[in-house]
């Protein structure tokens, strides 16, 4: 009996270890995660329109059908990024994810000063390189520090009633994402 019990016990201890390691490794290993799916829609550092979910197809699982979505898959390795998202008559929100899908920042249109949500995304190193005075004079600029070089910006715009969908999509198609300086 003991001859069986020992390897079984050792196996289960090992199993616990394997479990913990694999749970932590999964976000790094996942092949078909949000980053991969959104990357397939278009270029990096550009806005892509995410198709509305239908019963037959949904680019990402469990998207809210009452919304219109756009995304910008970002790569900060060649410099900071600027994002400009027009506001709509209703709720617009922006969430920032690392490549592994962890949210590191989110905001909605109530944080927008004018008729668009304008912000800059950069790593801590890039922010440290910003000229000091510029940082002060640009106090109205919203700078978001990214903990990762690669990630996803995801834009969600509420559609009050189906008749407004085309209009909201049109507004979102004017969203811009690109290298800092190129987006105004």
């Amino acid at each position, binding site marked *: 009996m003991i001859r069986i019990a020992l390897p079984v016990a050792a196996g289960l201890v090992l199993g616990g270890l394997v*479990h913990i390691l*694999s749970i932590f490794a999964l976000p790094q290993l996942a092949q078909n995660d949000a980053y991969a799916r959104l990357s397939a829609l278009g270029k990096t550092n550009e806005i892509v329109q995410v198709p509305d979910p239908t019963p037959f197809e949904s680019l990402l699982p469990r998207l809210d059908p009452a919304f219109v979505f756009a995304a910008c898959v970002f790569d900060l390795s060649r410099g900071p990024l600027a994002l400009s998202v027009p506001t709509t008559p209703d709720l617009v929100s922006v969430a920032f994810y690392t490549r592994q899908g962890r949210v590191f920042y989110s905001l*909605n249109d109530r944080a927008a000063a004018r008729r668009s949500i304008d912000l800059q995304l950069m790593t801590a190193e890039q922010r440290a390189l910003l000229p000091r005075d510029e940082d002060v004079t640009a106090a109205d600029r919203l700078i978001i520090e990214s903990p990762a070089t690669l990630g996803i910006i995801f834009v969600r715009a509420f559609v009050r009633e189906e008749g407004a969908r085309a209009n909201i999509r049109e507004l979102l198609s004017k969203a811009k994402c690109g290298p800092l300086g190129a987006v105004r």
Partner: protein
Amino acid sequence: MRALFFIFALIIGSASGLGMTWVMSARDNGFGALDIGVWRSWPRSGTAEADPYARANFARSGELPLGFSEGVVFVATTDDRGRAIDGRCITRIKGKLLPARFWTLTVYDGRGRLIENPAARYAFTSTEVVFDAEGDVEVWLAPRAHSGNWLPTGENERITVVIRLYDMPTGVARSEAAQMPRVTREKCP
């Protein structure tokens, strides 16, 4: 003999460990759940403090969780008596929701897909739903047309109802008085 035991332990270890990971990463997102009635939420999933299980779950499914300042998601898969919500039955969702700037109520099948119907009606939003005299929301889930706020369920055996509360004041979900609608099965064929 010793080598055999070693291999045996190795097989048990990798099978049980990876098996557990497989099961846990497919389930709804980990610990730290907040329950209000039959409605379950994971308020931390949209923050940097999301637990490893939630992250593994999102990575595997490809879902992007709502950010914390965007909104909070509540999911129901059972009625008030603990029975799975059955799309072949008539189910009533009635009551008040937590305060938010907007909310949406969406039905999905057991695999998380929207349910096909000729009217392409998958959800109600707070801006289009009809409230009753007491200010309650009353939504009917049924396979065939129903009076009032009706959402079609096809003939799916299992239904998942998702309420998303957008731009919610912080803290209200955790208060004692927090309430969400009741989910009752009214009639089954």
